[in-house]
Structures are given as structure tokens and as C-alpha cells.
């Protein structure tokens, strides 16, 4: 059953987001689907096609936005398993697969001595960077911001040496971890400099996803020692250059790390989106009214739950998030699952329609 938002909405999606970012009153909660694989599926393409062809990926995202005009979705492109390809390894494309994202073939090095001999990749041509740039080019043509490289080097560093090796090195070879983080940070900043010069800081946005920095893997002390200095450097650079659109995706449980985020330079109205492991109200209270909270519809329920369960889960999120004086965006806990039944997206719509108005 399609929900008729047109009769109730007082703002267009663009106006709604603009007012939210300006901390002005809005009519209802914005929903950002954060959909990539789902957009591909709805457009009838497999994920290999989506990721190999940024222009087609953009079209798929636009089609999704047109099919669901009540959402505040934005075109998105990227994947989590990074680093190996950029530093000399290879990538496995999810051809003929509706579900998987590109992934690394394997670590590039596994010995700490190997860090020094890692090449310094070209920040214009390494790995996925040219693909991101193609997506950025078509995004800008349509008035969407260009994406800057993620704000943490840890995702790439773990991709270069393997998750378990990186975590072991934190104890056995901390200097190697720092050397690796430094190399990756240099690449990210190099790519960022090119992107900002090309499109202008005011037309750029950063989505800083930090799955490998979570307390499910490392302690808050380890985050402070091995991740925070580099995140500070990268996000500080963006801020200094004049980038003002920041989204931090706290993927996993980052409760122990939150205190450190107070030291990381961020502009007002930074969006903090959280996964299912964290609490919307508590996280919102922590960051305060100067920032926006987003999340955290269970992706398991979106994919496998009933219409009623998804509806209830969405209402849970709305009730928690709408209390936040800084503003709230309804989002899934992580990427919208590609295999989500369309009916479950309709359940989200119904819940927003009934409970999402201020």
C-alpha cells in the first residue's frame, strides 16, 4: 500500500534537509535509505555492474530516489573492503551477484618489515579512487556533493595486512601500525586535495565510516593511540579547507570511543549515524544539540522481518531519535540490505507517515 506523503508534507526533500542542516524546524523526519545494492537490485543490475560502472550506479540511485520520492536518499558509491587494491593487491568484483560488495583478494603484506617497502600509491589512479572520481563527476553534474575519502585510515590498513594481523600488530609491532596508518593517511589526504581542488570544498562532503575502529575489535585506548591521531588529522584538514558536510558512521559499538570524538575537529551539524549496537538517545545526548543523530533501523529486520516488525522497529527509532533537539535522520543501521523486500521499505514509509511528523 503506497503512502501519500504529498498530502501531508509541507517541505520538499531538499528543503527538509536544508532546514535540518540549518537547525530550523522541519515538517517530519527525513529518511535516508543509504542504499547501494538495493538500488542496483531495483534497477535490475548485479553489484558487479553497479561497482564497475559508477555512472550506471548513479543512475540506479537516481531511479530509486524517483521511485520513492518521499525519501531523503542521496546517491552513494563505495565499499568497505579497501586498501589492498590501492596498495598493489587486487579486487574481486561481485559479478552476477546481487548481494556482495567488491572485496580484496587477500592481504598485500603480512610482515611488519613489508610496510616500508609498500609503494606510495598515486592518489589519482590507485584502486577505487578513479571510480569514486567518476561517481563524483556525475554527482556534481546533478547538484550532489562530491565524496571525499573516508576519515579513518584503519579500514585501508586492515585491508592491506588483514584484520587479524593488524590487530596483532597493535600489541606486537605498534610502530609498524603507525607507519601503515601514516602511509594510508598520506594517500587519503592526497586524494582529498585533488578532489577539493577539482570541485571546491563547499561542494564536497565526507562520510567517515569507522567499522574497523569499533570497540568490538579494539579498546578505547587502542583507538586513542592508533586511530584518533589520524582521524583528527584528516578531518582537521577537511575542516581547514572549508568542507562543512560531515557524516560519521559509527559502524559497530563505539561507546568506549565516544569520549575521544570530542577531541576530533568537526563542524556543527555533523551527522552521527549509528549501528544497531548503539543507543540512539544516549548517543544523541552525548553529542548534544549541535549535531544531528541518525539511525538505526535493524538491517536484519529490514531484510528478514515481517512488515509489522519493520514498522515497529521504525517507530522505535522515530520515538528515540525525534527527542533529540539537534535533529534526527531516520536511517538503517548500515547499508540498506540489497535483498530487503519492497514491502519492508513500505513499512518504513507507513511508520514515518504515522509517527514521523513533528
Amino acid at each position: 500500500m503506497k503512502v501519500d506523503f504529498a498530502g501531508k508534507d509541507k517541505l520538499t526533500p531538499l528543503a527538509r534537509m536544508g532546514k535540518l542542516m540549518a537547525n530550523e524546524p522541519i515538517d517530519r523526519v527525513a529518511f535516508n535509505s543509504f542504499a547501494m545494492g538495493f538500488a542496483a537490485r531495483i534497477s535490475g543490475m548485479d553489484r558487479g555492474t553497479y561497482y564497475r560502472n559508477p555512472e550506471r550506479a548513479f543512475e540506479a540511485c537516481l531511479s530509486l530516489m524517483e521511485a520513492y520520492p518521499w525519501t531523503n536518499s542521496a546517491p552513494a558509491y563505495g565499499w568497505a573492503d579497501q586498501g589492498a587494491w590501492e596498495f598493489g593487491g587486487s579486487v574481486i568484483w561481485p559479478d552476477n551477484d546481487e548481494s556482495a560488495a567488491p572485496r580484496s583478494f587477500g592481504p598485500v603484506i603480512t610482515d611488519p618489515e613489508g610496510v616500508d617497502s609498500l609503494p606510495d600509491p598515486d592518489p589519482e589512479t590507485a584502486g577505487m579512487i578513479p571510480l569514486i572520481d567518476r561517481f563524483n563527476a556525475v554527482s556534481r553534474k546533478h547538484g550532489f556533493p562530491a565524496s571525499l575519502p573516508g576519515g579513518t585510515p584503519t579500514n585501508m590498513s586492515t585491508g592491506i595486512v588483514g584484520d587479524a594481523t593488524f590487530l596483532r600488530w597493535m600489541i606486537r609491532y605498534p610502530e609498524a601500525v603507525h607507519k601503515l596508518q601514516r602511509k594510508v593517511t598520506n594517500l587519503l589526504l592526497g586524494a582529498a586535495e585533488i578532489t577539493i581542488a577539482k570541485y571546491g570544498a563547499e561542494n564536497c562532503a565526507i562520510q567517515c565510516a569507522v567499522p574497523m575502529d569499533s570497540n568490538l575489535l579494539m579498546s578505547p585506548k587502542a583507538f586513542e593511540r592508533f586511530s584518533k591521531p589520524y582521524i583528527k588529522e584528516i578531518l582537521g584538514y577537511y575542516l581547514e579547507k572549508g568542507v562543512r558536510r560531515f557524516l560519521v558512521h559509527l559502524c559497530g559499538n563505539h561507546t568506549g570511543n565516544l569520549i575521544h570524538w570530542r577531541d576530533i575537529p568537526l563542524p556543527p551539524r555533523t551527522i552521527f549515524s549509528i549501528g544497531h549496537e548503539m543507543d540512539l538517545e544516549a548517543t544523541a545526548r552525548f553529542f548534544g544539540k549541535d549535531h544531528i543523530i541518525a539511525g538505526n533501523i535493524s538491517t536484519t529486520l529490514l531484510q528478514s522481518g515481517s512488515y509489522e516488525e519493520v514498522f515497529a522497529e521504525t517507530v522505535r527509532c522515530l520515538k528515540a531519535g525525534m527527542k533529540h533537539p539537534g535533529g534526527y535522520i531516520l536511517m538503517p543501521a548500515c547499508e540498506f540490505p540489497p535483498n530487503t523486500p519492497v514491502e519492508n521499505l513500505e513499512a518504513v514509509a507507513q511508520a514515518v507517515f504515522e509517527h514521523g511528523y513533528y
Partner: protein
Amino acid sequence: MRVQKEELFRGLSDAIVAMDEEKTVELSKAIIAGNIDAYEAIEKGLSEGMERVGRLFEEEEYFVPELLICSDAMYAGLEILRPHITAAETDKKHRVVIGVIQGDTHDIGKNLVKIMLEASRFEVFDLGRDVPPARFVEKAKELGADLIAISTLMTTTMEDMGTVIKLLKEDGSRGRFKVMVGGGPISKRFADRIGADGYAVNAGAAASMAQTFLKAER
């Protein structure tokens, strides 16, 4: 002799908790040199140490890096002690087939469960990552395993955990194995829906659950 034995076992346990691979190896060698029962040393030294590590992990004193280094020490000790276990003691072990379900290559969680299962003296056969459902069934039957443990971090691959159970039912072998599932998107509700015997929220809980399954069968 008894005092010395207990001291060595305690020392082994402490070395594991201290992430001291060198000390673990030294003490393991001393145990062999002293003709002390290797199986008892594994049980009261290495496994005991890893149980303490598991509690520290649950209390968020230790995190994954510490768990991995402790397990390195444990494996170093096992390498020395295992060859000295008698065949009868080896036969006593319960077998687990473990892997990450097809389509998923995230294996840290699976590796942590494997560590804790081995620390709990299960014999673990690791199928690795991206494992087709039929392979779990095939290997479990081949080995006469007691337990199949399946992991995933992704919503997109979790339904195939149900496929493993479906395959077991189809060939009439469901009753031969306990099936345990875990990973980021997994919940007890999901485990119940697909007909799994259990869901564990973390590696320590997985090892405890495995022990509970087997005690219930005795």
C-alpha cells in the same frame, strides 16, 4: 611433585593471560621434561588460562588484539603438548566443524570462536571463509562431528545458514549434529527461525554453549 605440577599449570595459565608466548613454551617444555601428563597440562594450564582470558574479554578488559596474542601463546603451548597426548585422550574430544558462510569473508569472529572452542578442548575443523552450505554438511558427516558452528557478519549471507539446516533435514541427518550460529546480524530469534540449536553472542558464550550441548547429551 604434586606441588610442582600445580605450580607449572598455574604458571602456564598466567603466561597465557600475560600474552607471554615465550614463557608458555618454556613451561610446556618443562612439563614434558618432567613427565607430567600433557592432557592435564592443557586442561589445567592452557585452557584454564584461556578461560580467564575469555572472562577478561567479556569484562572488556581485553579486546580482540589481546585475545589473539593470548591465543598465539596457547597454540604455541599446544604445539609442544599435543604430540604427548595419548590416543585415548584424543578420542575423548568432541569435534566441531566451523566456518564462515558462503559469500562472506569476514572471519575474525569465527577465528575467535575457534580459539575459545579449542581452548575448551574441542577438536575444531576450520573450513575457512565463503563456505558453501553443502560443505558444512559434507565435512560434518565425514568427521562424525558433534557440532556445526556457522558465522557471518552480513545480512546478505545469513539466510544460507538456514540452508545448512535444510540440507541436514533433507538427508535425514539433522539429529546427528548440533548447529550453532553467530555473527553481527544474528540473533536468537533468527537462530530459532532457521531451526538452529543455539545462538552465541560472542566467542566465550559460543564455547560455553558448545559445552552445554554436550553435557545435555551425556
